């Protein structure tokens, strides 16, 4: 803590550190870049999350920073505009690459202008959308934004504005073009068998070699964060599962933990253990699907069917206990919705040895296959620095050697009482990202194996008030979901609805890594590298 104080005081004078959940520093827009550069050079090399805020009288941006050197360190940086009119905040996208997409999102939702951002297009909404929907004074009248019924040219999407101030302090907009004239641009998606959802990639090709990749988001943007602001906390739980539908349980867990932290609830040990079992089963299911899809994208459909077959067993366990298969809906604030089914324990115990056997088969079928190895080894190499700068967490980040497992960094729900290893690999190529998932399945099995034999017996739910109102304040909870560091930020005013909810989506940063990883690779590798990053589009689009 002393160290952070030193860094802050050397960067700019008059700054104080507030002791909240994480040390918090408020800076003015003028000081931001200086402080950010200082923090980056002193080891805060990861911009985990960027949240735009509407404080009614002014706007603000919240930066959650962490470090690859000291992974326990977290720092929250807050910037606020002086009023509702002067919305200019300098960009930090050249300091942390992950800010590129985050700032576009904040611009899209709040209209906060990031000065110097190289590509300030709207990200989820259409370029001609009127109004900024996350502002509290947003007019949602459908007549303002009628559904367009005529064809529009795609060139609207290629105009990248950059804002800057000229000598007289006047705001000027410079327009850059995404593609030059005569570039061979291929649309991959939004309807394409290998984009794993409705992602639209604009790929510039030279023969089969990729020159540029421009991801285009928003095809499945549902405004979940906005919807949260008008829903009660138990209702929001249903929305969390629909972000990353393959790690729905974990997202829901994250939101429950965040609300429980705010309420000061003590969750029974049994509920925690069952939640962790569910989380790990979901992780296995997600990795199995990721593995299968990756094999299918390389043309091995048999492997995909095998992955789906084994995932089905997990779905059956979920159905037996939770009722749902994909959206289990089992975690509630304070614990679990109900006691586990009678068959639950025997089903899980049966599944563990089966899955261990199958992992061996997968390695024989695919991991050791010379064609598969030839396709994956040395392809799409991501260095640790790149991963940190792009904010690529989860298995993809760990494959580059970045130890970023939240289960180890900020243990929640009793992960610190379970013996398991954080799997790390050093190569950072597609094969490492492939292999690490199968290794993580084994670690997950180890966690489940321990917990299912040591289930405490102290009830499944803590007592919660009938109407859940979070005390005023800000709460942030990190959870390791199947794709990486999933964060929930809740700003409450003490009402039964949150004032602002922000989900830190690990998938958005994964997609932003596509461009740097695929440059100068072949188009066949774009699909495979994308599959190895294992993103889920509804999580990125929210």
């Amino acid at each position: 803590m002393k160290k952070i104080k030193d860094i802050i005081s050397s960067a700019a004078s008059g700054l104080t550190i507030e002791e909240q959940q994480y040390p918090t520093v408020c800076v003015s827009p003028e000081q931001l870049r200086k402080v950010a550069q200082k923090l980056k050079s002193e080891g805060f090399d990861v911009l985990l999350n960027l949240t735009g805020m509407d404080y009614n009288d002014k706007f603000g941006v919240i930066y959650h920073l962490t470090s690859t050197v000291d992974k326990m360190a977290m720092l929250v940086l807050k910037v606020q505009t002086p009023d509702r009119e002067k919305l200019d905040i300098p960009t930090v996208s050249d300091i942390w690459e992950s800010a590129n997409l985050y700032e576009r999102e904040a611009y899209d939702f709040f209209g906060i202008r990031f000065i110097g951002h190289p590509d300030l297009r709207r990200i989820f909404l259409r370029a001609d959308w009127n109004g900024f929907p996350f502002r509290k004074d947003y007019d949602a009248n459908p007549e303002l934004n009628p559904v367009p019924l005529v064809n529009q040219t795609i060139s609207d999407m290629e105009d990248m504005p950059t804002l800057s101030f000229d000598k007289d302090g006047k705001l000027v907009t410079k327009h850059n073009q995404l593609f030059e004239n005569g570039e061979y641009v291929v649309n991959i998606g939004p309807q394409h068998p290998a984009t794993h959802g409705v992602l639209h990639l604009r790929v510039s090709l030279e023969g089969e070699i990729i020159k540029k990749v421009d991801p285009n988001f928003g095809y499945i943007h549902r405004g979940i964060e906005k919807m949260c602001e008008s829903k009660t906390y138990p209702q929001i739980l249903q929305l969390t599962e629909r972000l990353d539908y393959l790690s729905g349980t974990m997202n829901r867990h994250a939101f429950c933990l965040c609300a429980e932290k705010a309420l000061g609830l003590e969750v029974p040990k049994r509920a925690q253990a069952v939640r962790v079992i569910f989380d790990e089963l979901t992780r296995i299911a997600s990795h199995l699907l990721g593995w299968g899809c990756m094999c299918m994208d390389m043309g091995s459909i048999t492997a995909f069917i095998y992955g789906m077959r084994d995932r089905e067993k997990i779905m059956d366990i979920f159905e037996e206990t939770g009722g749902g298969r994909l959206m289990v809906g089992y975690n509630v604030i304070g614990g679990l919705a109900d006691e586990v089914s009678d068959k639950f324990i025997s089903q899980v115990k049966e599944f563990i040895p089966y899955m261990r056997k199958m992992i061996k088969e997968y390695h024989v079928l695919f991991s050791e296959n010379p064609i598969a190895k030839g396709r994956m080894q040395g392809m799409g190499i991501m260095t640790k620095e790149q991963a940190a700068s792009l904010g690529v967490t989860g298995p993809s980040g760990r494959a580059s050697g970045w130890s970023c497992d939240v289960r180890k960094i900020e243990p929640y729900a009793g992960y610190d009482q379970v013996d398991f290893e954080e799997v790390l690999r050093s190569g950072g190529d597609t094969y490492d990202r492939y292999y690490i998932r199968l290794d993580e399945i084994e670690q997950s099995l180890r966690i489940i194996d321990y917990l299912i034999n040591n289930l405490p017996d102290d009830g499944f739910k803590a007592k919660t008030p009938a109407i859940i109102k979070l005390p005023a304040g800000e709460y942030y909870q990190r959870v390791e979901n199947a794709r990486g560091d999933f964060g929930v930020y809740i700003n409450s005013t003490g009402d039964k609805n949150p004032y602002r909810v922000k989900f830190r989506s690990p998938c958005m940063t994964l997609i932003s890594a596509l461009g740097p990883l695929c440059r100068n690779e072949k188009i066949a590798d774009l699909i495979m590298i994308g599959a190895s990053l294992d993103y889920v589009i509804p999580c990125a689009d929210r």
Partner: protein
Amino acid sequence: MLELDNLVSNVHTGLMEALPHWAALTIEYILIGVLMLALYCVLALILIFLERKICARFQCRLGPNRVGPWGSLQLIADMVKILLKEIVKISKSDKILFFTALFLALIGSLCTFGALQFGKGLAGIDFNVGIFYVLAISSLGVVGILLAGWSSNNKYTLIGAMRSGAQLISYELSAGLSILTMMILAGSLNISDIINGQAHSWYIFQAPLPALVAFIIYLIAGHAETNRGPFDLPEAESELTAGYHTEYSGIQYGMFYLAEYLNMFIIAGIATTVFLGGWQPFQINADWAAGFNGVMSYIPSYIWFFGKAFMLVLLSLWVRWTFPRLRIDQLLHLEWKILMPISLVNMLVMAVWVVLFF
């Protein structure tokens, strides 16, 4: 006793006696054409059904099992469906080339099919450069694929067609060289001579080392020529949606599909003819095995041919449903730097072998 050659020659002599020469020939041509087309379609149906059932087994599934016994009528239902589907007209395509491409792909495969000998006396055409003709006419398909990719006016199809062109032309070399190797042994390009030369022992046993190498190379190259996994880059569905036939719909797509399946059988048929004795039964060239040879000869020749060909098709299915897809540079690397040099050396070995042992 079960052979069909007597029936065929009886029909021939009967027609010749009853009708003037030209009329008999015309009727024979039409008859053979219709029979070939029927066989072509029936084989395609059988192949598609087999593939669906077999790949389902590989993948721990059941495959089609609702329509008819063991799902056998599923194919008929699918065929009717594909015939009734709307043919989507592409507004900015080159119409003439777009339709020509389709027929070129089909004609290439059909003409090759016609040159195969399915059993004793069951040959559509038989002339002195038969195998040369097969190699030449089977390359017609690649023109169809290139045209399809070009005329569709779509970037995916164009990339698919370019890949396909590079792939087929490359692998044609290895396939041709390995057949050529066997021609050194056979000493003839006539398909009948080739088959008759294997009456006592198949070529693969006559010169075990070079013939086996040529056989394996031919299987790999032939598999690549049929555009099926792990060599299915031209239509890599995860990258190019459907490659060169993305824009074709309904029965147009069905025709490409048909040609692709039959090409798989044709490759197996040629491999059977050249390496595994065509319709000749398995024989042991020794006095003590006379009884065994008699039993083998009793099995009709067409069963031998289709049996061998379907074994090779099964092998191809097995490979397809096990391996992931290669990348284009790896694919060309395999051909130009590995298979072709081996083929060339192998041809020399075969020549020396023939000089020394025959």
